[in-house]
C-alpha cells in the first residue's frame, strides 16, 4: 500500500512537469501534502494513540492547508499572478528531462538496495522529488514557482526521512515544520515587496546586485 502511495507521489511529479499553470502547481502541492499524511499515518494504524497522531495531523495542517492557503491568498490573488509559469526550457524538453532523471534514479536506487539498507521504491520516489524540485527552481522563472519548487524539495526530504526510517525526536520534527512554514511566510512577504517595487515577479528582475 505504501508503495502505491509512493508511486502516486511520482505521478504527481510528472504532472508538475507537464502543466504550465501556477494554479496547478499549487494543487499538486496540496495533493502531495495529503499523500504525505497517508504515508506517515499508514504504519500507525495498528497502534492508534493521540500522541502518535499529532505529527501526521500537523503535516496535513501545515503542508496541505496552511501553506497553500497562504500562498493562494497572499500571492496569487493579491498580486493577480498571471496563470502561466514562465519557463526558460521548452515544455517537452522539461518533460523529457524529468522522465529520464526519474528512470535513472529508479534504476540506481534499485542497484543500491541490493547492498544497503534502503527500500528501493520509497527511496527512489523521495530522490526524484528532490531532483524535480531542483529542476523547477532552475528552469522556471516566476518567483512564486520557485517557492513551490523549494516546498517540493522539502516534501522529498520528508519522504526520504520516512524511507530511511530516520527517527527524529518528535519535537524536532515539529520545529522543522514550523521553520519551513516561517520560511514560506517570509518568502511570501518578500515576493509581495518585490512585485510592488520591481513591478515584475520573476527572476529576471533580480539582477541589481553583481560585481
Amino acid at each position, binding site marked *: 500500500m505504501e508503495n502505491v502511495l509512493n508511486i502516486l507521489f511520482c505521478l504527481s511529479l510528472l504532472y508538475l512537469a507537464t502543466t504550465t499553470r501556477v494554479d496547478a502547481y499549487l494543487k499538486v502541492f496540496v495533493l502531495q501534502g495529503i499523500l504525505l499524511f497517508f504515508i506517515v499515518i499508514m504504519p500507525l494504524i495498528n497502534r492508534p494513540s493521540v500522541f502518535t497522531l499529532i505529527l501526521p495531523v500537523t503535516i496535513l495542517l501545515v503542508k496541505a492547508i496552511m501553506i497553500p492557503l497562504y500562498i493562494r491568498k497572499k500571492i496569487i490573488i493579491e498580486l493577480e499572478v498571471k496563470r502561466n509559469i514562465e519557463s526558460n526550457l521548452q515544455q517537452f524538453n522539461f518533460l523529457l528531462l524529468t522522465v529520464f532523471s526519474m528512470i535513472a534514479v529508479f534504476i540506481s536506487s534499485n542497484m543500491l538496495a541490493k547492498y544497503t539498507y534502503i527500500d528501493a521504491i520509497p527511496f527512489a520516489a523521495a530522490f526524484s522529488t528532490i531532483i524535480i524540485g531542483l529542476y523547477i*527552481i532552475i528552469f522556471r522563472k516566476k518567483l512564486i514557482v*520557485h517557492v513551490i519548487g523549494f516546498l517540493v524539495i522539502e516534501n522529498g526530504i520528508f519522504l526520504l526521512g520516512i524511507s*530511511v526510517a530516520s527517527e527524529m*525526536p518528535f519535537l*524536532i520534527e515539529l520545529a522543522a515544520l514550523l521553520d519551513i512554514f516561517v520560511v514560506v511566510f*517570509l518568502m511570501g512577504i518578500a515576493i509581495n515587496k518585490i512585485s510592488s*517595487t520591481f513591478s515584475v515577479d520573476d527572476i529576471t528582475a533580480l539582477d541589481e546586485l553583481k560585481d
Partner: protein
Amino acid sequence: MYLILALLGLPLLTGAVFFVFDNLKIKYAFSIIVAAIHLAAACLVFSGSNVPDFEQWLRFDALTKLFLLILSNVYFWVMINSYQYLFFSPVAKPEKSRKIFYNMTNLYLFANTLALISNHLGLYWVALESTTLCVAPLIYYYRDKESLEAMWKYLFLVSVGIAFAFIGILFLTLSMHGTDAFEKGLYFSNLIANSTKFNMIWLKASYIFIFVGLSTKIGIAPMHPGEVDAVSNSPSPIAALISASLGGTALMGVLRMLQITSKTPVYQFSQIMLIVGGMASLIVTVVFMFRLNNYKRMIAYSSVEHLGIVVLGLGIGGIGFIGAMFHLIYNSLTKMALFFMAGNIHRNYKSREIHNVFSLLKDLRWTGILFLLAFLAVVAMPPFGIFFSELMIFQGLLANGQYVLLSAVLFFLLFIFIAMSRNVFKMMYGSTKINEAEINQTNKPFDEKLNITHLSTAVILCVLIAMGLFIPPALYNTVSEIAKSFNF
C-alpha cells in the same frame, strides 16, 4: 542551570517581550544588559563551570566553549554600537525596521546559542535554520531595492542549502543502519564514539551534502553569492553579526562532521573537500577583488577569503588546524572593526561606491585612521593576530609537504593584498573628479566627533594586537583541547 537561563532563556524572553514594546531606547538598554549577561555566562562556561546537559541534548566540550565565546563577544560589541547606526542612519530612517531590530537580534542570539550548544544533529539543524529566519528581516533593514534583492537571495539560497544539509543528515542515518548506534539516535557524542562502525559510502555521501549545504551559510566559494549580497547590503551591525559570528556557527556543523569522520577512512576525503573549498574561495576572491567598486562588498569578499583560509587550515590538519582555530577568532574581531568603520563611512558619504569616498584621512580623521588599521589587520600585517594564525596555517602546509599549495596560497594572498590596498588607499587619499564647489554643495564638511564606535573599534584592535603577541593560556589550552578531540 542559571547559566542555561542566561544563555537561552533570557534572549528568547527578551526577544518575545519586545514585540509588545515600542520604545527603542528601553529596548537598546535591555539588549545591552542581555548581551552582557550572555557574555558573562559564556565566559563562565569557557572557564569550565558545570552546565547541565539535559539528558544529552546539550554539549559543552572545548569546541562549543570557544565558539560560544566568539558569538557572545561579537554580539556584545554589536549591541553596544547598534544604537549609533540605528539613530544616525545613512538613509531615511526606516521606522518599521527599527521597531523589529532588537526583537530579531535577541531571537538571533537565542537561535545561534542553541545551534552552538546542541548535542543533537536535528536540533542543530533546526536552530541553524532559525538563525536564517531571524537575520533575513534584518538584511531588509534599509527597505530599498538592493536590500530586498539581497534578502530574497540570502533566504532562498541558504534555505535550499540547509535543506541539502538535511539530506546529508538522513544519509548519516542510513550509514548508521545495522549498528547499535542507530538505536541511540543522532547525538553527536554517540556519532563520534561509534563512527568506525558506520557504512563508509553513506558517510561519505552525508559529508558531501552537509559540507556543500552548509557552505552557503559559511560563505565559502562556490556557494558564497547569497552571503556576500546579504553582508554588503545590510546595516553595519548586522553585517558584522553575519560575517563574524554566523559563519562560525555554520562551520560548527562541518567541524562536527569532521570529528565524526576523523577516525574513519572517509577522513582523507573530507580533508580534500575542505582544501578544495578553501582554495576555491581564494581564487574567487582574487578574481572579484579587482572588479569591485563597492567597499562593503570588498569587506564581504575579504570574509570569503578568510573563511576560505580557515577551511583550508582545517583541511590540512595538525598545526594548520590550530592556526585555523585562531584565525577564526582573529577574523571575527577584525571583521567587526572593519564593518563598524565602513558603517561610519557609509553614514557620512551616503554611498557605498569606492569612487565616491576620498580623502578619508583628512575628512573623517578617526574613522580613517581606524579603518586603515583594521585594513592592515585584515591583510595580515604583524603585529595583528591574523598574521600569526596565517603563519601557523602556512607552517601546517610546509609540514605536510604541500609546497605547490603553499606557493599558490601565497600568490593569491599577494594579489588580494594588492587589490584591496589599491581600493583602500584610493579611499584614504584619492581626490575626486567632481570639482570642489560641487563637493561643498553635496557634502557639507564633516566634523567628526569621537564616538562609541571609534572607542570600541580601538579596543577591538588593541585586543587583536595583544592576542597576536601574547595568546592567553586559557585560550591556548582550549584550542589544544579541541585539537586533541580531533586526534591531532
